[in-house]
Structures are given as structure tokens and as C-alpha cells.
């Protein structure tokens, strides 16, 4: 894997950069608000704006009100929480591994969650998210710790390249086991193929409440750690000479990623590409300062997830496409455009 270093901000760039940073913020906030409104207003069922307004003041017919508040409401909230968590987790992982292509899955989060879900489905006969969400969280946590231990084996220090390799290897092994479990009988296969898609539909709010504490703690740790990531981006030696406790910061980042990505994945199943994609857009707007990248990732993640979800409700009407399927269709073209536009990617 190509280890990349994000260069420290160059002084000549500073003025222009500051303008983009601050100027971008209202744009992103407005976009987020618009997406929230669209997520309530649009869906497989056509509901006129008038009815939406009626629903707000409580005079809409019960059927329409149910669709707006009980079906679209919870999934909008879930999109917000999960998008923010995955965006920040992606930003942290890319800073930690100094690899712009890393995503939270690289620490084994998805594979771990899927593994324990598969175990629950095959051996305990579970078949809905309400039943296996705790297994998903536990799996994500356990496997991340395992990847961390392998990646840092020896000197007790995280070597970004080794961590990446360990994540890829462990995820591969687990994927084999998951596939074997999945093929063991048609019922398990059916449940697991639904898990693999990743969806925010039909999620009761208590799914969100059960992961929210994890996301909140993860977010707090991430916020605390992101200033130090600027120093680490310049290399361990520089960071140490600046008095940054490199090891502590790295462990904090791993903990934050695990909580954020693990919690998000437990609630929705794997939403691919959000964690990879969001930091790239954030860096375009925010420049290399990790505190700003953090802020932008936090806001852009939900925009992307909401956009994907709304799109998924509209393109296959009267049916829907799960959001986890759509995320890469929204994100990948953006990534390709970015990489073609820029002279060379940071590498």
C-alpha cells in the first residue's frame, strides 16, 4: 500500500484556503438541510408538499402522516447519525494509516460485524436486526482489536502499512468463514444477503438509540484526537519532537474508529464507500488541516448517505434499493472525477 503523507499547509496557500474553508461551511450546511427536507418529502409514495406541511401541523391523513413520521423520519435520523460516524471514521483511518485509500473496513469492522451476525444467524437462528445488532457491535469491536494486535505485534507500536496489511488479511480470512456459514443453508443465505446490502429502511428508532452512545463517545474521542493528527501527518519523528504522544493518539484513533464505524455498521449493515469517499471531498474543501477535515467529514457524511438513500427510494419505484447499494454509485463517480482532475493524488 502506498503510504502517503498529507503535507502541512503551505503559507502561500493560506489565504485562499481560509476562504474556501469558511466559505464552504454555509454551503455544506445548506446542502445538509436541503437533504434532510428532501429525505422527508421524497420517497416511493408521492406525497405533495402541501400534505407534508399538513403533516407538520398535524392535519394530514393518518396514512400519509405515518409514512412521513414513522417511516421516513427514523431513517432520516439514522442517515444523519451513520453518515457522520462513517465520514469521521474514514477521515481518522486515512490519517492513521497515512493512506488516502483506507476506509474503516480496513480495520476489520465490517468483517467482524458480519462474522458474528452470521454466527448468530446460522447457529442461533436469528433473522432480524433487532436480534443481532449486539452481535454486530461485539464482532466489530473484537475484530478491530484483533487487527490492531496483529498490526502492532512486536514493538507494540502501530505501523500504518502493517496495520493495513493485517486488516486486509484478517478481513479475507473472515470473509471466507462468513461465506461458508452463509452457504450452509438457504435461510441463513437469505438473511445474510439482506445484511450485506446495508439499509436504513424499517429501522425502529430504538436501533438508533442503542448505538448512539457508542457514536457519541467515538465522536468525542475523535474530536479530541484530530488536532494531534496534524503533527502525526508530518511523520512520527516530527510529532514526537513537537511533544505529541504519538502512541496514545493512535490508540485513541483506533478506539474512535471502532466505536464510530462499529456502531454505524451494527445499525445499518455495511455502507461501503462513505468512509473512503467523504474525507476526499472534505480535504478538497478544507485543505490538509485535520481539524477542518474532521468538521467537514462530519457534515458531508450525512449529505452523502441521505442523497444515496433518497435516490434508492426513487429509482426503482414502486420498489426500493437499499442505501448500502447506492452509496458507491453516488461516491465512486465523484472519486473518479477528483482523481482525474487533480494532477496527482497525494502519494
Amino acid at each position, binding site marked *: 500500500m502506498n503510504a502517503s503523507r498529507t503535507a502541512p499547509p503551505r503559507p502561500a496557500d493560506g489565504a485562499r484556503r481560509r476562504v474556501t474553508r469558511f466559505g464552504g461551511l454555509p454551503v455544506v450546511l445548506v446542502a445538509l438541510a436541503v437533504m434532510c427536507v428532501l429525505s422527508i418529502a421524497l*420517497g416511493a409514495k408521492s406525497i405533495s408538499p402541501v400534505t407534508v406541511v399538513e403533516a407538520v401541523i398535524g392535519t394530514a391523513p393518518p396514512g400519509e402522516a405515518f409514512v412521513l413520521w414513522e417511516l421516513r423520519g427514523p431513517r432520516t435520523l439514522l442517515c444523519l447519525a451513520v453518515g457522520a460516524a462513517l465520514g469521521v471514521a474514514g477521515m481518522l483511518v486515512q490519517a492513521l494509516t497515512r493512506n488516502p485509500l483506507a476506509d474503516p473496513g480496513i480495520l476489520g469492522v465490517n468483517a467482524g460485524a458480519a462474522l458474528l451476525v452470521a454466527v448468530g444467524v446460522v447457529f442461533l437462528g436469528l433473522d432480524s436486526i433487532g436480534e443481532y445488532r449486539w452481535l454486530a457491535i461485539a464482532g466489530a469491536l473484537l475484530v478491530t482489536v484483533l487487527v490492531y494486535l496483529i498490526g502492532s505485534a512486536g514493538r507494540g507500536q502501530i505501523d500504518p502499512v502493517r496495520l493495513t496489511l493485517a486488516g486486509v488479511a484478517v478481513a479475507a480470512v473472515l470473509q471466507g468463514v462468513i461465506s461458508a456459514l452463509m452457504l450452509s443453508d438457504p435461510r441463513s443465505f437469505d438473511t445474510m444477503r439482506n445484511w450485506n446490502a446495508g439499509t436504513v429502511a*424499517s429501522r425502529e428508532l430504538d436501533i438508533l438509540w442503542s448505538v448512539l452512545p457508542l457514536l457519541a463517545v467515538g465522536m468525542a474521542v475523535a474530536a479530541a484526537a484530530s488536532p494531534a493528527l496534524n503533527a502525526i501527518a508530518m511523520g512520527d519523528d516530527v510529532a514526537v519532537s513537537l511533544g505529541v504522544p504519538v502512541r496514545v493518539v493512535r490508540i485513541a484513533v483506533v478506539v474512535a474508529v471502532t466505536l464510530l464505524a462499529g456502531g454505524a455498521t451494527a445499525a445499518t449493515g455495511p455502507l461501503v464507500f462513505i468512509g473512503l469517499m467523504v474525507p476526499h471531498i472534505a480535504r478538497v474543501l478544507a485543505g490538509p488541516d485535520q481539524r477542518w477535515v474532521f468538521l467537514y467529514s462530519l457534515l458531508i457524511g450525512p449529505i452523502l448517505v441521505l442523497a444515496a438513500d433518497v435516490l434508492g427510494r426513487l429509482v426503482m419505484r414502486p420498489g426500493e434499493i437499499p442505501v448500502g447499494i447506492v452509496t458507491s454509485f453516488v461516491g465512486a463517480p465523484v472519486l473518479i472525477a477528483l482523481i482525474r482532475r487533480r494532477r496527482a493524488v497525494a502519494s
Partner: protein
Amino acid sequence: MRAAASCPHPAVRRTPSTRPRRKVVCDVANRANRIIAAAVGVTLLAGVAACGGSSGEESSGADGFSASVDGAYGAVEVHARPERVVALSLQVAEILVELGIQPVAIASSQDEINEFYPWLDGVFTGDLDPELTPNYVADPEAIGSYEPDLVVGNTWTVAEDVYAQLDGFVPTFPGLAEANDDWDAVAVALGELTGTDGQGLVDSVAAECAAAQERLPDLVGGTYQYVAAEEGQYRFGNGSWLECFGLVPADNQDNTQSTDAAVSEELLDQLDADVLAVFDRIGARADIEADPRFEELPSATSGAVLWLDAPVANATNSPGPLSHDYFIAELLPELESAAAEQG
């Protein structure tokens, strides 16, 4: 039948299939091997199929039995009444049993039967052997170990490549051309291949359905929808089994199981058939009933919403004769009370 290619008598040559042959390239490349296989197959089948004995004889076997039906990949021929039949799916196994033929081996396990096919418990006297179709693909060696004179499967378990492996060795019925065979067409074909009364079996099940309809005078002619609850949407399943109760598909009911046959949970009001069958795989019943629009569905007001558990759902999925017995017994009482409500 590949082995027949070396039979000297023209009557037993492989009959040209009416279906276009997709494996032209493979066939050319395979010719040398086919000759070897043919030689092997002939030797092997000599005792059983009486194929290519002395030239000039009838192509039929010792008991004068011979049959040929069009399978998914070409004609399937037998030249003696099959006695050792290997069944590669439970659906064909139950058809065979009802035709009076106990397969020597069935690709299933007691666990699978207990959990998903309880009405088939104790029906079979042959071996239940899951290794016949590891990973849902027929294994020629496992099949060969039962020394079968007929293998019956479907196009899922016997794909073209597997068919090519088995075909020269033992007559193999890989299902009919359509991917999801109607059980009655399969029953007639298997009746022909085994010299039993397939049509009689089809008629007897039709009579059962007719008897069920007689008890539902007010529902007959009504519409049905059959969906599986998924997260966020309802996916249409093949609901043609509901026609046994005299129902007809609703306008938006999609029995093709194509990839876009689904409606969002936001459009619950579109599930407005007289009878609504729901396979609730994910335990969504409480959520669905919480939607205020549910109570207003015609099926809900008359009590004609059928919540299927896994066994009933399996009984309705490509049902055979015994599966019909089971789902009729399970669902008729509910439908009767719904019909009473409507009447």
C-alpha cells in the same frame, strides 16, 4: 444420452433437441473425451439399460420399457423401467414417492426436513444424503455411489456442466426447460420416464384443490397477492399456488420473481387484494400491523391476511403433491373463516 452415441442402432441415437444447443464449442472440444466416455458408459450401462446389445434389437430393455422426454438440455431417454432413482431435490422426491417410486437416495437431511419440510418426515425410505448436492451442485461421484439408473434433479442442481458429466453415465432428468418448473409438468414427465401415472397424480391434486374451493364459495374468483416482507419493502413471490383456492392474481401481483418485483413499505396501500399472503421472514408482522393503512386493506378487514411461517412458505414454493396437502390443511381453516366474514 451420451452413451447411446456409440450404439450401432439408429433408433437409440441421441435425439436432436428442439432447444438451441448452447455448448457447441464445448461439444467440439469434447468429442475425444466423449468417445471415451461413451465406451465407458456403454460398458457400464450394458447390464442396466440393455443399450447396444446386439444390433437389430429393439431399443427397449428386457421388460420392453422405453421412454423419452424433453429435458432442459435435450432428450432424456431410459430403456428399462428405472428402479434405482436418485432424487436431487425434495420437490422431485415427493413427486416420485407419490408416483409410487421410492428414491434410493434423496439430497436432503433429516435436520432440513424437521425444520423446513415437516410434512415430509418419514415419507422417504431411501438414504437422506446431503453430500449428493454439496453447495447446491450435484456431485457425480456421490450420485454414482448409489448405482442409479435414473437421476432426477432441477436446473439449479444440475447445471449444463454437471449435466455433461452425468449424461454419459446415467440417464439424467435435469428438469424442464423453464427454470421454475410447474410441478404438474414435471410429474407428467417423470410419470412417462418411470412408466407411472403422472397425469393421474396431477388430477388427484386438482381434485383436492377443487374440494378446497367448494368450501370457499365466496372467495373463489377473488384476487390474491403473495409477498415476502423485506426490510423497507415487500417483494412479490410466485403466488400461483393460491390459484389452488380459486383465486386470481391481482393486477400488480408479479409471479415472475424478477429483480424489480417489489413495492416499498411506503406503498402498503397497494397490497389491496382480497387475499394477502405474507411470508414474514424477518418478524415484521407487528410493524406492518402498526401502519394505520393496514387495517383498511380489504384482506385485513375480512381476516384474509395469511401470515406464512417458513414451513408453509416452503410448502408453497414449487409445491409437489404432498406440499399441496400440507398448505391446504394449514391455510384452509383461516380462509374459510375469512370467506364466512365476506359472505
